[in-house]
């Protein structure tokens, strides 16, 4: 099987764009990606499009051209983007197609997501009584983790501080002003242990990635950014997930751990070989926990890692180089693809003020979300 390469990337700035629909933000990203790849719309053979709350992705053919192409919509919670990308690479790996696209976009109202219990096979009382809230889960998971492994609030603050500092140099990010560490730490609590700067917000944005077989990529004359692994996994027994009225006393693994392990096996490399990583940072605790769940460090080592700046742009493993979800917000359908976009920028050396030094050759992305799904990619140049 030939490698699948990413030959074009496009992004609509994340944040709030009044007057532009989520779908049109997706169209914007597609046009940018086509220009980047140097191909026109009719030359794409297929698309997988993801959106959680902003309409049917395939309706964008009306804006982009009625080429008759195969266009499959994907809606898979927080793994929507990852699932679109996984599907797109399979379409090429199988030999069915030479070139196509994964696109994701979304446009969420302000404030926390208001998920309904029935969508998650939960009783109505669970929502009525005020449990149907993602922030409660993230906070309770982090609170337990900090207790077990000695992670301090200062480390949470450092994660958020880094996010906004990195985002200053990312044109597509939403919150691009540095926030001093003490301001982050002293801000009002949203859900303990997190202050308002430590949670990402649902937002808007669109990302498109054009994928091609290695043969096609060579024809296009693009630098070969290879998608060495793309995995999407659901939860194993004993995990602790969003919207859990109960969890097992015997603790188990997580969707992230198996998606990560399988991705490394596919790519034939290990965590120590990764030069830059984008890890789901729905809040500051998630980035910390996901460092360990993805195999980059042991539980508890994050405290020292953050104090020593090892996840900074110039550290041993730069994490969330564009500010991640904390600075970019989380338009569900686009969020996972944004991470891959950022990694392509880094592997091409186009990161400008946020460029990881040392000519990075490998890059890792990870998303996590309800009801216990995770998607991982590994890119190599």
């Amino acid at each position, binding site marked *: 099987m030939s490698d699948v390469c990413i030959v074009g990337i496009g992004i609509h700035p994340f944040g709030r764009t009044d007057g532009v629909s989520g779908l049109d933000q997706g169209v914007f990203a597609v046009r940018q990606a086509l220009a980047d790849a140097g191909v026109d719309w009719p030359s794409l053979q297929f698309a997988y499009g993801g959106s959680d709350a902003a309409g049917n992705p395939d309706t964008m053919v009306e804006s982009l051209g009625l080429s008759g192409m195969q266009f499959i919509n994907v809606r898979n919670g927080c793994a929507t983007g990852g699932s679109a990308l996984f599907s797109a690479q399979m379409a090429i790996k199988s030999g069915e197609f030479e070139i196509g696209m994964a696109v994701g976009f979304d446009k969420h109202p302000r404030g*926390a997501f208001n998920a309904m219990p029935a969508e998650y096979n939960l*009783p109505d009382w669970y*929502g*009525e*009584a005020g449990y149907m809230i993602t922030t409660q889960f993230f906070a*309770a998971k982090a609170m337990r983790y900090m207790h077990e492994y000695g992670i301090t609030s200062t480390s949470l603050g450092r994660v958020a501080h880094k996010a906004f500092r990195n985002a200053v140099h990312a044109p597509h990010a939403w919150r691009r002003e540095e926030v001093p560490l003490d301001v982050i730490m002293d801000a009002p609590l949203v859900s*303990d242990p997190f202050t308002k700067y430590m949670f990402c917000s649902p937002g808007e944005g669109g990302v498109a990635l054009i994928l091609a077989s290695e043969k096609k990529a060579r024809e296009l004359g693009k630098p070969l950014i290879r998608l060495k692994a793309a995995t999407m996994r659901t939860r194993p027994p004993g995990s602790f997930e969003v919207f859990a*009225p109960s969890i097992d006393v015997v603790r188990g693994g997580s969707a992230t751990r198996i998606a990560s392990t399988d991705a490394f096996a596919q790519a034939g490399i290990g965590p120590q070989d990764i030069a830059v990583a984008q890890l789901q940072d729905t809040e500051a605790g998630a980035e910390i926990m996901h460092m360990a769940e993805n195999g980059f460090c042991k539980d508890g080592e994050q405290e020292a890692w953050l104090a020593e700046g090892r996840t900074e742009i110039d550290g041993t493993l730069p994490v969330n180089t564009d500010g991640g979800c904390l600075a970019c917000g989380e338009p569900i359908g686009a969020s996972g693809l944004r991470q891959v976009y950022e990694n392509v920028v880094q592997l091409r050396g186009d990161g400008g003020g946020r460029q990881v030094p040392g000519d990075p050759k490998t890059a890792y992305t990870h998303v996590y979300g309800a009801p216990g799904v995770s998607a991982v990619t590994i890119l190599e140049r």
Partner: protein
Amino acid sequence: MHAIAEGLFTEETPPRLVGGRHRQTGRIVFPCPAGSDYEPYPLRRQGTLWSYTIQRYRPKSPPYAGSDSFEPWAVAYVELPDETIVESRLANVAFDAITIGMPLELIQIPFERSGAEPVLVHAFQPLSQPSGQPTGVSA
């Protein structure tokens, strides 16, 4: 006052939460799922605090059915040994006195609803207190 949902509590005094026990694997969950895979399984009333957070903003309605006036509350995961770790409100403890590992016991507290009569929901309180009396004070 009746409970927020049928089948959540046992009929005894004081009541227990009704979990579900998987008929094949013995796995215990809360609440008891519909269908025939799980049989109702009353959960023990006492446990320890596994983790928690404070809900400091009013959740969106729907699905939240609470009254328009909002006071922060503590949300806990309470480990019931050998059974399951159940999500619950915490009651009758100051936020800054909450510590992971503290012994807790089940009570019922009134839940004020918007445009509807209050109903009883489950909560856990520190074990040392007189049990069973719903006070509804959470901080």
